[in-house]
């Protein structure tokens, strides 16, 4: 049960959040189709840090970016999602 420091709500239990996908798998409507399909179906899936898009679904409902280690679960940073992240 991770503790996630929501920038709007403070430190909250993981059960309030839902994981969406990695930042680099966000597919915008402007992308050409083959690029979109490629991004949709390819993941680095590292046993280390990745940039992840989460939502504080049962809290402020904002979209957040977590820089999180997938083996140790260390959360290096949590920030509100910014389109510049994509």
């Amino acid at each position, binding site marked *: 049960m991770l503790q996630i420091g929501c920038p709007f709500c403070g430190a909250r*239990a993981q059960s309030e959040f839902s994981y969406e996908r990695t930042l680099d798998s966000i597919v915008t*409507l402007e992308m050409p189709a083959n690029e*979109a*399909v490629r991004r949709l179906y390819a993941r680095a899936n590292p046993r280390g840090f990745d940039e992840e898009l989460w939502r504080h679904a049962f809290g402020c*409902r904002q979209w957040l970016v977590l820089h999180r280690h997938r083996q140790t679960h260390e959360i290096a940073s949590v920030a509100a999602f910014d*389109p510049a992240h994509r």
Partner: protein
Amino acid sequence: MSGPSRLPGGPEPTLRFTFDGVPLRGRVGDTLAAALLANGIGLVARSFKYHRPRGILSAGVEEPNALVTVGEGERREPNTRATDVYVYDGLVAHSQNRWPSLAFDLGAVNGLAARFLTAGFYYKTFFGPPSRWLLYERFIRRAAGLGKAPAEPDPDPYEHRSAFCDVLVVGGGPAGIAATRAAVQAGERVLVVEQDLAVREAIDEARVLTRTTASGVWDHGFVTLVQRLVEPGQPPAPGQPAQRLWHVRAGRVVLATGAIERPLTFAWNDRPGVMLSQAVRRYIERFKVLPGQRVVIATNNDDAYATADAIAAAGGSVVAILDSRAEKSAVARIAAHPVHTNAFPISTSGKRHHLRSVEADIGGERTRFEADLLAVSGGFTPVVHLHSQAGGALDWDEAIQAFVPGASRQAVSSVGAAAGDLPPVGIAVADLPDPKASFIDFQNDVTAADIDLAWAEGYRSVEHLKRYTTLGMATDQGKTSNMAALARLASVAGVTIPQAGLTTFRAPFTPVTLGALAGADGGGHAAPNRRLALYDRHQRLAPIWQPLGLWHRPRAYPVAGETLHQAALREARAVRTAAGIVDVSTLAKFAVVGPDAAALLESVCATGVAKLAVGRGRYTFLLREDGMVMDDGTVWRLEENRYLLTSSTGGADRMEAHLSYAHRVLAPHLRVSVVAQQEHFAGIALAGPLAKAILAELTGIAPPAHMGLAQAEIAGVAVLILAASYSGERAFELYAVASDAGAVWDAVEAATRARGGAPYGLEALEFLRIEKGHIVIGAEADGRTTPHDLQLERMLRKSGGFIGAAGLTRPALSAPDRLQLVGLTSETPIPEGAMLVTATGEPVLGHVTSAAGRVLGEGAVALGLLAGGRLRTGERLLATSPTRNQSAHVTVTAPLFYDAEGTRYRDGD
């Protein structure tokens, strides 16, 4: 006199309990184990495999042997450690895993075959067809298992609670209390948990939970605790739970979890009367019970000498101290007992399941001592489980021959014995002349010979060893067997213990009842019941309720002994010929408001939206990113920049997240807000040829044209009227704020009934929409169908720019043989879900997704998905359901069976 007994003096035992039907007495504060020993009972159980007699080895949760069933009937708790239950008045306990009795157990015959039933023997035999294995299994399963579960539901409540603290101290012994005091003085909020009845010393500023075990350490200082408010089998106080599961978030965790004493390995070391030395001391000093009169002590460290002193002080006789060390330590030299160095126990012998003598090897010479108690101490193992669960490393401490906490991954530290603050041990270990009789795991009957065999057969990693022999996999999770096993493995492998390895520590530290894990969610509360705002209105009509996810919606309203089908058909006919009303409150509803509302909707809806005029609505559908139809519904333009999107009940939560994603992540520059309103508005659909007249009468306004909308009042309540039709008749969806909707329902129901109509449920709605070929999310749109598959491609917005457009370009999605939506007709009922084939035994070409009888008229209609179905109109197929023994000959048609021109809802205005 021999055997265990209560020491003279002290209060009268006032608590009445029974063991195997025999009435006994215990003192307040006794564990069941202490009380049994006080009553001279040393035989309490039988081991798992060989049904060997088992007594009480320890005085704590590490107990592998003394497993009994406590409680009766619905409160029966099998596999309870007698050392971990405190006696209460009326406690009922029974021994387990024995027949016909504990003293004479036929299962012990397994022991005679022990030489054949070695570790892993079952992998090497029982070959043959699986049906034969099932036969063998019947006997194996009956012999396996320890206690018996109750048959009845659990009557007691359980509870979950949360707690937050700066410091969680696990263990209320001296080290834990010292850590608590220090933290309190530093101004930290402290929570102390202790498995036992009390902590060593109360500290006012700290919160203390007793009879509470720290079960698991998870991520980021999250710790689960299990608190016992009553003992097993005991009913909880009124209004109180039997157990609580705590979810604690701690800033840091201090583990003062102590250490567990290690038994010694020698022949017949599993006999009742062999006990851990510190346990003997505890029984004497705390419970005033002397577990034996003539005692041999076998040890490799100084701690056991305190046990010798305690025994002597209690009036017992220490016959010998067998010290495995070569030289007498300082403590040994001043001991007032016969001490033998270079001394090891070799075997025990017994009579009527109790210890009678101990054979020892003293400097190479064999000697036999008459004794009724053998207290053993092979050193102490720090309890590192929680440290390890938290990801901490373990280091090997040569002096105490144990693993101690090393580098910690989280803010978890260990103090006291748990950190390795323990007496050093002598390293010398005796040869085992009889490994077959030398037990390592007492509960699962795993011997040193089993370990030797596993090694010889190549099961050499500690994980393979464990799994092959089942050692460490009993209810005690190896607390008293892991180190002895590693020592044997190391010896056989010719490596050191740390080189031999260590298995992973996993939650729970001690077993936790499923009831506690479930908390208040057990017994039916595992999923909440979502109730309609208009529930009372429906309940008055005694409907058949239908679950839809967490919701329940009326399926039909049978009257006068009607069956479900009769009611639904009557209701559907009423809709086709007069009018009906149905509760559509559960549909997802979203207010999409702002100058860029249309742009957001067009990014998610695969149909046109932007060209919708104010006051108009249209059908729409949405795709997943991979191009599959995800949801469908309607979109309405209420005002210039205010839209309402409705979509399926089941997809409401998904849609809310989807809209948020589409806005906040994909197009945050859009000036729009989206508000989910599923529960805010109740919805009533009024449908039928008389619907327009009914609505005009109720509202006093001219009802809107098909796919138009209006605002009005019914029974004084503001109502939004959307002229959409799911049933195929002229229809209006009426939305009112949920808390006010009852009055609306009453008025509409009365007006509808007055015209010969009636409320209808989901079953009738199914009949109606199937005839109109309206797809349903979950049936036709099953998450694997594209718009083209569902004959919706003409509605796709040609300009693209919606989620899913890219996914749709993938080549296989336009393959001609894909499952495509078709209609099916038949003279006989078509089984829903049936497979479509050309003839019995031929390959499956598709399936029936939804089926119903015609509402007016004879015969059956259905929707289905058929390979290449768009080009198969007119074909004759068989809809077959082997599981229900039903079938129907069907003809493939267009998916529309009623009012193809749509005249029913255009009334020419």
